[in-house]
């Protein structure tokens, strides 16, 4: 009894530092943000703010904003799904290629393909913004000089500016999925494929019944993480569109929150919107993990 008690004390002591850090950097800010979301804190009430209930949440759903909050929400979903789709498809495809046995210069290709991930997002965004320039950008130079197509005003149109941000983020995001998928592929025992070969399986059967199920437990958490990161990726969309250009049409929810909080000091409103974003992502993660049964053992 005494020994167990001492053991528990020891475990508590070991856990305590991380628990304190967790409370300081996660629980406290989250709790404080929730309190702010129930308050009227803003530029004019920064010192004398008070709890006003769920008014800010009601405002989020009912006030007509410029741009419209529901349009922004739709764009955020579109942004997340499109990015994730290409991150996974490109990432897994490249991982499958790099996992082949006899590829010349595999290490060099792997290094080159990881590069987008290693470059700071600010540099990437500003470089791509220059590349999308109508007159001097390399994208239009390729379109006109190589493909004989007319130049596109990438950063001026609502849809083309949004597409520019998506292209940049796809380029930035696929290496993460590639690395995760490559790690998972390398851990699949070779004898499984050999056994499938003996059973007469073709490449599709091997991919469908061996690769996919064994990739799944690794890829699902990566996709969940990727969804959360992409949904909340302020940097790329903000920098490529220069803060929502053109005409505030390239906002996603998180850039709209940023603007409300730090450009207009609407802290209460921004806090309420960020709690809503948190709930959306929480519900998505829980239901996605449950539906895909990632926690279950595949063997």
């Amino acid at each position, binding site marked *: 009894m005494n020994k167990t008690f001492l053991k528990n004390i020891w475990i508590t002591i070991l856990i305590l530092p991380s628990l304190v850090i967790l409370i300081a950097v996660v629980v406290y800010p989250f709790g404080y943000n929730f309190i702010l979301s129930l308050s009227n804190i*803003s530029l004019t009430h920064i010192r004398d703010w008070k709890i006003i209930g769920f008014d800010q949440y009601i405002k989020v759903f009912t006030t007509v904003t410029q741009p419209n909050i529901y349009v922004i929400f739709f764009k955020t979903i579109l942004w997340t799904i499109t990015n994730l789709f290409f991150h996974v498809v490109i990432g897994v495809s490249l991982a499958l290629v790099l996992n082949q046995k006899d590829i010349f210069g595999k290490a060099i290709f792997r290094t080159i393909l990881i590069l987008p991930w290693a470059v700071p997002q600010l540099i990437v965004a500003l470089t791509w913004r220059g590349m999308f320039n109508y007159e001097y950008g390399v994208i239009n130079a390729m379109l006109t000089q190589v493909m004989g197509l007319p130049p596109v005003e990438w950063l001026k149109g609502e849809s083309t500016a949004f597409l520019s941000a998506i292209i940049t983020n796809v380029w930035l995001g696929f290496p993460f999925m590639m690395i995760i998928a490559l790690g998972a592929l390398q851990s699949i025992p070779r004898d499984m494929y050999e056994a499938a070969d003996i059973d007469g399986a073709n490449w599709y059967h091997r991919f469908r019944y061996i690769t996919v199920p064994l990739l799944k437990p690794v890829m699902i958490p990566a996709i969940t993480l990727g969804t959360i990161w992409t949904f909340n990726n302020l940097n790329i969309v903000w920098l490529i569109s220069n803060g929502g250009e053109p*005409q505030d049409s390239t906002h996603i929810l998180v850039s709209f929150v940023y603007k409300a909080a730090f450009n207009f000091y609407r802290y209460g409103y921004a806090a309420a919107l960020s709690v809503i974003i948190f709930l959306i992502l929480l519900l998505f993660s829980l239901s996605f993990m449950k539906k895909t049964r990632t926690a279950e053992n595949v063997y």
Partner: protein
Amino acid sequence: MKLKYLILSFFILSCGNKKEERTKITIWHQMRVDERVILQSQIEKFMLTHPKIKVEQVYKETEEMRSGFIIAAVAGQGAEIVYGPNDNIGVFSSVDIILPLDTLFDKKFISQFNPKALTYYKNHLFQIADKLGNHLALVYNKKLLKTPPKTTDELIEIGKKLTKDFNNDGKIDQYALVWNYTEPFFFILFYTGFGGWVMDDEFNPTLNNYSMVRALEFMRNLRDSAKIIPRESDYQIADALFKDEKSAMIINGDWSWSSYVKAGIDIGVAPLPIVNETGLNCAPMISPKGYSVNKNISNEKLIIVKELLEFLLNEENQLEATKLVSTIPTQKSLYSNPYFTNNEIMVNSQKQIDLGRSMPIVPEMRAIWDAMRPHYQAVLNGAKSPKQSANDMQIDSKIKIKEMLE
């Protein structure tokens, strides 16, 4: 026993190494790299004569500094001194986080400065600037253009001659003029040239009027009819075109001029042209950059801060900055200094300042910028007519001001 000795020796060593406590003063600023180097050297000079004081400068990006300082100072924290453009002052004093400087400095000290360097809000002085301006002017490459245009008609006439397709491939190789025309800050000078201003005396937006419509039309015509500016140009593109000598003129602020000199371009600075239709000068917004003091500061530190600011704002230090980064000083006595009077860039920069209009420092200005931006861009994109755009700007700015001040 050994452990006891170890603890004892550690204690003795710790005592022996203990340095005398220095009072630390922190300055948050958003200065450019070259300005930061000057500030650091001046801080070091100050610390040499004040060994018990440690002054630290911390760079923050403009928006980060503004919001960071608000959050920190409301919580009783933050840097003792904050440095930036004076449009911060309205917000800072609205949330009561900066000290009125007329309680800290006497009238004699304050009277040394150009009145444009002193930012008052609700009858109190909240900022003393060390640099005047932060203003736009017409910068031209003397190799490509000998005499800058004085009027908008001249601008178009000269501009057509300077816009060139050297190799006849249908692509323009040299433009007459560039600037960052995604930002309304750069557009204001046309609005003022056509007789408009952003707000009335009660801080209500004044954007839906004939001046706005004409200014928007004029700007669009420069691109689509006169074709003397590129189809698309943000800050980076405009800057690169001018540095690569692919543009004869650029409208840019005093912060950028020294970089053109460093890039080897023989530049001239001229006041922005007069609009023929109105006879008015295109007037940029003027926003001095200077120091404010955190209201939470202790009395002990306040004495040091006073001394430090007196040092940083003195003639010698301002002249040093002027020589190195081509900024307009705020000490009145320096305006008769030969360096200033014999320097063509300085003289013309001063002329532009005299023709400019002070940027409103009230918080409402942020909402107006934000409301202007999308509708102004919509005109350039062809998505809206100037008339519609002016109307929408006005409506949006009222909504945004209401939301911000609720």
